[in-house]
Structures are given as structure tokens and as C-alpha cells.
């Protein structure tokens, strides 16, 4: 029970892990903005209401930092690339795209087909494990138990699937004439 803590405790964990979090943010491409982004993270933590015990607060903060960097990349892509390539397909899990809903539904269908086609190059078991992980949010250790294989074997299946879906994004990138990212 000792590891449970409330959100105000989360701020303390953030202070204690300031240096490794900054290092992580820089490694994730934050550059000179790392301090500002840590501040943003701090504000988010402050807004989380108390009494939400978190099993591993340190990992929780890193996950938030990881998501924050990813959101920034996506936001800058939306700005620079709004009309182009894969942003044109209305893809935005945050639901902020500006395509009308009927069209969006159609594009989502097409995207689904593309993802399914790409995954079809993998074995059935890899596909099933990836769906269980990605769609249903089941942890690797639970999948390993269910499938009767080791966690590192589950990891290998997921690695193959992520390689395939990442390549789909990459393709769309190359079709876009503009660079996506600041160096």
C-alpha cells in the first residue's frame, strides 16, 4: 500500500524527478523549450484533482511528458501541413480535424482498409495480439498469460505490427512536399 499516493504527492514526485524529466523531454526533441514544457506538465499535474492514487507516479509523469511531446508534434503538423497528405485524410484522434462528418466517416473507412491491408502481411497471431493491445488496451503481461508465451515474445509480435503501421505513416510523409518537423 505504501506506493499509493495522491495528486499533490505527484507534484513532489515531479520536483524530485526534474532532471531526468528534462533530459527525457530534450531527448524527445523539446530542445530549448524543455523548461517551458516541464512547466506545462506541472500545470497539468496541479489540475489533476487530489485523491487519485497512482501506482507508479514516476512512470505516470514520464508518460504524460511523452504524450505532451507527441501532441506538440501533431499540433505543428496540423499547422504546417493542414491541407496536405495524410492530414488531408482527416486523421486526428483528438477529433479536431475540420472535415465534415460524413466525409470523415468515409475517409476513416479507407484508412481502416489501409491499416488492415498492411497488417494482413503479418501472421494472424501477430494481428490478434496487436488488436488486443492497441484496441482493447490489454497489457503485455496479460496477453502473455492468455497466449501462453513470454512477455518478450508478445513484445516481438507488437514490434512487427508497429513497424508496419509506422511505415504507413512514413509513406504518407514522403508524399507530402513539405517538411514536417523543425530539426
Amino acid at each position, binding site marked *: 500500500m505504501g506506493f499509493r499516493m495522491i495528486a499533490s504527492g505527484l507534484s513532489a514526485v515531479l520536483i524530485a524527478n526534474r532532471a531526468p524529466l528534462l533530459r527525457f523531454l530534450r531527448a524527445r526533441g523539446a530542445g530549448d523549450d524543455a523548461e517551458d514544457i516541464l512547466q506545462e506538465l506541472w500545470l497539468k499535474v496541479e489540475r489533476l484533482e487530489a485523491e487519485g*492514487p497512482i501506482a507508479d507516479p514516476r512512470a505516470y509523469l514520464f508518460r504524460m511528458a511523452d504524450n505532451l511531446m507527441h501532441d506538440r508534434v501533431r499540433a505543428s503538423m496540423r499547422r504546417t501541413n493542414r491541407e496536405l497528405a495524410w492530414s488531408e485524410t482527416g486523421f486526428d484522434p483528438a477529433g479536431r480535424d475540420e472535415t465534415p462528418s460524413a466525409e470523415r466517416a468515409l475517409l476513416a473507412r479507407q484508412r481502416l482498409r489501409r491499416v488492415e491491408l498492411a497488417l494482413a502481411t503479418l501472421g494472424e497471431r501477430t494481428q490478434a495480439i496487436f488488436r488486443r493491445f492497441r484496441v482493447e488496451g490489454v497489457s503485455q503481461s496479460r496477453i502473455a498469460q492468455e497466449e501462453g508465451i513470454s512477455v518478450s515474445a508478445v513484445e516481438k509480435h507488437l514490434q512487427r505490427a508497429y513497424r508496419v503501421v509506422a511505415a504507413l505513416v512514413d509513406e504518407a510523409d514522403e508524399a507530402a512536399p513539405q517538411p514536417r518537423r523543425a530539426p
Partner: protein
Amino acid sequence: MIDASIRDQAALWMARARDPRFGDWDALADWLEADPAHNIAYEDAFAGHDLAEVLGIAPAAAPVMSRPASRWRRPGMIGGGLLGTAAAAAAIVALVVPAAPLAQVAITTAPGQHRLISLRDGTQIALNGGSRLVLDRSNGRTARLEQGQALFSVVHDETRPFTVDAGGARMVDLGTRFDVTRTARGSEVAVAEGAVLYDPDGAAVRLGAGKMLRRSDRSQVVEVSQIDPAAVGAWRAGQFIYRDAPLWRVAEDIARATGLHIAVDPGVAGRAFTGAIVVPAGQAAFSNHLAAILNVTVAQQANGLYLKARAPR
């Protein structure tokens, strides 16, 4: 160009870091620091992770129909409701249900329809419209909410806790009345009485009366907030009570209750709403009320309503 071995490594790190139990962030930082190309490949893999979200919005019709044994292991495929109308989702469900294997029983409701389910132990489950609940005949103390919303009034039994699964979230009752919602973007639980234990095998968050927990499918981040216990389950009387709820969530509730198809303009989808909405039995003037309460323009579309920002005066 980023070479293939970096892309392989990035895919492996993505698989690790998206696991809810992942904790080795320092090792990930080591790898990212080693070469700036690593972060670019990692971001591409992250975008692939986002892209794969589409797998959750529709059933893969052919394989699901032809392989009944695997059907029940993919609840997320039928849920979602991002696409088409809830009625279309219900039609798909209707095709699947009669062939239900073994002990699993799926109960579905059309939008606007409520159902009360009584279990042998006295536990009652009120199922909101546009919802799908799977029960297990061989184990009366489990339920899986695949889509929509359900209010659980559980008869507590220390020796046989009642477990509810919704998306990747799992809840165990500690003697209670609580509401579970599977939205298009995640899972929610709100406790009216007693307490619920969220994620018993992991975080083990205890939620008392008046607590609400949201888990995002995309980020897997869990947030706990306050809710008026009296507001929990108010949907049964056609009432919806919100504090700082995003508009897309309000629209989902109303769609579930009325069967209206409601799309929300991205410009207002994240706007916070605080207040109460009563869904009337007759719906003639309802869209006018909605426009006034939510401070939006409600446009009629062929397939339902579209909520967007009011034009500036």
C-alpha cells in the same frame, strides 16, 4: 533517410512504452539521446500507433463472422460508434448475436431504449440506449460493457466480487451503485454509493461515492474528478447533469438517449459545459432547446443534427 534497423528499434520502443505497465523511461531516454534520428523514428511509430486507432471503430465484418471462436475476444471492434449511426451498429450486432457461443450472452439496446436486467443474486443493471452489454451465464458476477452506458446496483458479496470490464478498464465493486460508460474515446466510471476498485491488478484506485474516473484509450492516462452522487444514473429519468464536460461527450449522451445522430463541429467539441439537460419525451422543439443550453448553432442534416459555433454577431 532513416535506416531500417533504427525503425525496428523504434517499433520495439513504441511497443514497450505504450504498455500501461511500462516503467523504464530512463532506458528509453538513453536510446533517444544516442541519435536524433531515433526520436524521429519514434514519432513515426507513435503516429502509426494513432493511425491504428481506426481498428477500434468498426467490426472487421468478414473474419468476425467466419470465426465465431475469436469473436468474443474483440469487444472493441463492435464498440466505438465513431462511424455511421448507432442504429447501424445495432444492426451489425443483431447479425452476430444469434450465433452467440457457449456461455456468453450479449444484450443490446437501440438508441433511446432503456432496459433493466436483473441477475439471480439481486444485482440490477440498467442499460441505457445504444449500448451493448455482455454477460456470462457460467459466472453471474462479471459483465463487460462494450458500448454505451450502464448503471450497476450491485448486491455486494465479499467472497464473490462483481467485476465490470469496459475497454481496457476493469472495475471491482466494493458494495455499491455505479455508472459505467464506454465512449468513443475511452471509459468512465462514476460512483453513486459505496465504492469501486479500479484496475484491481494494477493501480488499484479506490473510488468512493462522488468520484468519477476517466481513462483515455489513446493516452491511457487516468484522471479522477468529483461528481455529484445524485447526478450518477440520472440518465434513467432523461436527465443529464454535467460539470465541465466536453461538448462531444454531451452530444454522445443525448444521441444515446434519443437516437438522434449528432455530429459536433471540431471547433466546439472540446468546449466545457456545466449544467443540466432534460431530454423530453416529445422531441419536436428539442434541437432549439439544445442550441440555447449549449450555446451553439444546431443545424439539421440529412442524418441528424450538427452542432457548431454560433456565428459572431
